[in-house]
């Protein structure tokens, strides 16, 4: 187990270097430091000297390979540096400020989604082949076909405008944040519900056709027990892997969700940085995204081994 972890962490080093390299190359293909300097300098028409000074200040005057090595080294040491923007604040400071809204919404949506979707999938699987199952799965397909935006705007309209149950957008710290998180969480859960319930239902039905289910019935085990014990514990394996894999995406905050609900989270921070060609922030956020993804995959494997005794981490 420990050996496995060490190996996985070592493997992740070349992956992260690759991510940094790609980001670096892509950046220079789409922008130049001069442009950024012009955007970010307070003077309307900066002189060549001012631009040069700015480039020097932010390290863009060094040879490219040196730039790459320096920035990559900084990222690996989690010295994320300062933003390229006028204010030039520390990236780490901003992350510390904005991780919580993203995290809160991610955790709540993850927990709510897995509980609700799994329960619904169990219900349709239990009533497989009946009208409840047929209508339920049709509804799932319908929900999958509706775009995310409809859920966002529809949710804001219904809950925020009509019912006035929640704020339409925004965020406040502390317990107040729950009021603001409610709608984004509902939207996140509902928008993913169709696909998840259908997928979870398939996992259950696959398991229900297994020989061990027949054995359980031959023992006289009741149908609810067959479903909730025998089938569920086996179906938990694919449910878990697909769900844990989704964590990195959740954690970085759904970019659409955060910008539409104006939530000061990491997703919003990244969008702003991209819009203002703030390379320092973009590369830091991309690096952290990659890191979170890798950690997510390792967690997936560990959880896999915890539920399925046949899996050995070696």
């Amino acid at each position, binding site marked *: 187990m420990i050996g496995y972890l060490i190996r996985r962490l070592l493997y992740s080093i070349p992956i992260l270097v690759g991510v940094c390299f790609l980001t670096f190359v892509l950046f220079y293909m789409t922008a130049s430091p001069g442009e950024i300097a012009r955007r970010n300098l307070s003077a309307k028409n900066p002189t060549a000297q001012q631009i040069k000074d700015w480039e020097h200040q932010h390290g863009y005057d060094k040879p490219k390979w040196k730039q790459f090595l320096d920035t990559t080294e900084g990222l690996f040491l989690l010295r994320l540096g300062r933003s390229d923007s006028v204010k030039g604040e520390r990236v780490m400071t901003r992350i510390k400020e904005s991780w919580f809204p993203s995290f809160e919404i991610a955790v709540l949506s993850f927990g709510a989604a897995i509980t609700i979707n799994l329960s619904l999938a169990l219900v349709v699987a239990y009533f497989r082949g009946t009208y409840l199952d047929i209508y339920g799965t049709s509804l799932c397909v319908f929900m999958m076909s509706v775009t995310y935006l409809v859920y966002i705007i529809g949710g804001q309209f219904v809950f925020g405008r009509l019912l006035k149950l929640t704020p339409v957008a925004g965020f406040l710290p502390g317990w107040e944040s729950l009021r603001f998180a409610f709608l984004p969480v509902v939207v996140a859960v509902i928008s993913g519900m169709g696909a998840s319930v259908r997928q979870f239902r398939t996992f259950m039905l696959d398991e229900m056709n297994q020989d061990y289910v027949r054995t359980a019935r031959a023992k006289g*085990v009741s149908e609810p027990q067959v479903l909730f014990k025998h089938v569920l514990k086996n179906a938990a394996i694919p449910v878990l892997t697909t769900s844990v894999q989704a964590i990195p995406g959740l954690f970085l905050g759904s970019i659409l969700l955060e910008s539409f609900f104006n939530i000061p989270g990491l997703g919003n921070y990244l969008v702003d940085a991209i819009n203002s060609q703030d390379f320092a922030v973009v590369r830091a956020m991309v690096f952290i995204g990659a890191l979170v993804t890798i950690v997510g995959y390792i967690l997936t494997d560990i959880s896999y081994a915890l539920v399925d005794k046949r899996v050995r981490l070696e």
Partner: protein
Amino acid sequence: MNPPLLQVNGLKTYFNTPAGLSKAVDGVSFSLQPGETMAIVGESGSGKSITALSIMQLVPEPAGYIESGTISFDGQDLLDLTWEQMRSIRGRQISMIFQEPMTSLNPVFTIGYQIREAMLTHDKFKGESATSRARSLLERVGMPSPNKVLRQYPHELSGGMRQRVMIAIALANEPRLLLADEPTTALDVTIQAQILTLLRDLQRDTGMSMLLITHDLGIVSQVADKVAVMYAGQIVEQSPTNTLLSNPLHPYTQGLIASLPSRSRRGQELYTLEGVVPPPTRWPAGCRFHDRCSKRLQICDSQMPLATKYDDTRSVSCHLYPAQEMAGNQERLK
């Protein structure tokens, strides 16, 4: 004679398939006395497993269903029972073991859990007594170090060991009837013999009845008191085991026996039955065996032979043995 423990009469189990209606079991009748072991022998696709699953009422739904017939167990027609009533019989009065030991156990539960569950489900043995009974069951089925096995998961055991566990589960509530569906087919030859001997010994010790389903006529003499030979969804011959092996009536049974390796024919080439069982969606008209039969008569491809009593212990469905020629034995079985 005692009333039979199990009496199956005119059982028809059909399946709706994309290829049409599959008459997998098409009018099967037999009976089993308490303490008796009967083997159902036939090629794959002849309806043996579906017969056993029909008794358990575990025919895969919704495609499969019991079309007609009666399955009377201890005087009670199982087909009249509700699902809940049937559930209290499964695993308690009637147990079943399967052909696939590798997949028949639940991979995420310990062996101990799976044996105990069989007992706890029926409230016959509880708590500590269930655990200690699980241990002694494992001992009884010949598992080395049962204490360790109780905590193990199925993937840690070999196929033969898993089949022993399945047998332990089946015996947990001291059933009166054990349905064993090709319990040794998936196992190595040496293991096959061990499992078969184990089943025979357990049957003798407990006095339960056993229905052994197999495609291998070679193993029945070790275990079974009598044999029913199945072909194309029907029983074509029923006979005490020794009589059947020494003096088979039906051309299909004769073919099966001729294709068995035997000491007296050592060195000779093995006989092989030409052809295969036809698909159950298109049983041939007349005698279902007629296109494979070397002795067929004029009427064989148009008229289905009925099960006929040949003597006190035997019955056969074949035009070679017409009922009217056997004076005194003209009673036709249903």
